[in-house]
């Protein structure tokens, strides 16, 4: 960035953050530029590739920026924040200002998922990779059209197929994580004690119901 040179040493704005934090302001600038134009959450590795930097300093810079926007480095809390959601980092309006923005952009009527779709989604999220047949045996209803809806909305996706039966396995997408406001499946509520029994139940279903 040679074009940067003439401007960099402005007298009353020494790049003060760099020395004490160990974070390179030029790296931060490049990351901020990508985040400003990105239309999806950016994973650290993708960001590192975009700014042509090793992963480790990128990770450090992203953390530093998120804290900086939160006002933790002597500045003030910005109107935007850097959130890790849906497998990557993305700029968001700070939550407390959402009402202001809703008024400004005019709120769209969100299309909500039906109860059947939500339950099917929950089963896929916890049991993935899972076939429609397995989901149907847990919900005890036909889930084909619901799965179609979830596919069209990008909340689930095909993740492979059973080599023997050809049945398609479904799993959830990063878009689902983003819709839930979480960054990984680990952040789903814990229900494992109940699920421990599930595999037995599936076998049992297989023997009795077919």
């Amino acid at each position, binding site marked *: 960035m040679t074009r940067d040179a003439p401007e960099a040493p402005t007298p009353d704005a020494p790049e003060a953050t760099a020395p004490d934090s160990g974070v390179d302001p030029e790296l931060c600038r490049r990351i901020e530029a990508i*985040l*400003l*134009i*990105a*239309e999806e959450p950016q994973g650290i590795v993708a960001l590192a590739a975009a700014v042509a930097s090793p992963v480790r300093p990128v990770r450090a810079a992203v953390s530093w920026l998120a804290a900086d926007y939160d006002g933790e480095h002597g500045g003030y809390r910005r109107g*935007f924040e850097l959130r890790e959601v849906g497998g990557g980092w*993305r*700029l*968001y*309006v700070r*939550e407390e200002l*959402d009402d202001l*923005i*809703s008024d400004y*952009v005019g709120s769209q009527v*969100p299309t*909500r*998922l*039906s*109860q*059947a779709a*939500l*339950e099917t*989604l*929950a*089963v896929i*999220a*916890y049991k993935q990779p899972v*076939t*429609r*047949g397995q989901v149907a045996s*847990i*919900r*005890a*209803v036909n889930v*084909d059209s619901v*799965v*179609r809806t979830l596919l069209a909305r990008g909340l689930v996706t095909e993740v492979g197929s059973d080599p*023997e*039966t*050809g*049945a*398609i396995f479904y799993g959830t997408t990063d878009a689902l994580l*983003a*819709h*839930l*406001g*979480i960054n990984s499946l680990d952040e*789903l*509520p814990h*229900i494992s004690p*109940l*699920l421990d*029994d*599930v595999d*037995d*139940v599936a076998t*049992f*279903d297989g023997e009795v119901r*077919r």
Partner: protein
Amino acid sequence: MNDPAVVEQGQGGRAESSDSGFRVSLGVFDGPFDLLLTLISKQELDITEVALSKVTDEFIAYLRAARSADELEEASEFLVVAATLLDMKIAGLLPQGELVDAEAAALLEARDLLFARLLQYRAFKEVAAWFARSMQREERRHPREVRLDPKYRARVPELVWTLTPDDFAALAVLAFTPKEIPTVGLDHLHAPLVSIREQAAIVVDMLQSAGTLTFRDLVAGIREPGIVVARFLSVLELYRHAALSFDQDEPLGDLILQWTAVRWTDENLASLGADYDT
């Protein structure tokens, strides 16, 4: 079952969400159906004391009055739960004091499994509520989502385009063809159908050329049980049509078949085994 009212208070939040839904009024319990399930799942209410037919009657009455999609959705849900309850109840009514034999043990195990299934179903239902809340919260959030500046778009390398209008139309046809989600074939679960008539034709051929054969000869080298069965049935059919006779020298001994038909045409063959057609 001690006192449903007390437990209901203890349930707090859950009872609140089910107040609007289906309620039941039974001798042992009066309140939201959802709460009934909770009590059963916590073994605070004995399933054997619940009159399922009454629950079902009340639910059907409730559905008649139902108008909203929400309420109708409850219908399918109810069927799941009712079926599970019924299974549990059957298991619950069976004697379970002593494990007299393996069958009883299996039934007890089955009840536990049904129980697990009910719990699992409820777990997913509760998690689905969490999904709904999280999604509603998140859809209020505003990410940065601004059209790319045209100056950047202009610098994108030129698109490589190779399609003619006809190619493009063919793609459209492909895209508009409904993509049925492939269904799981059940073929692997059933042996392929075997035609008795086809097998009879083979049997007739073999017997006409050899005159006398044992049944063992007739199925020599056949591994598919379905074909063996079909050949045996066709032998019975041919016997009914007086096309062959058979002898057995000793019990469990070889079955000796002899072709006896004077006149035998393909028409006889066509009418053979009609009893097995469905």
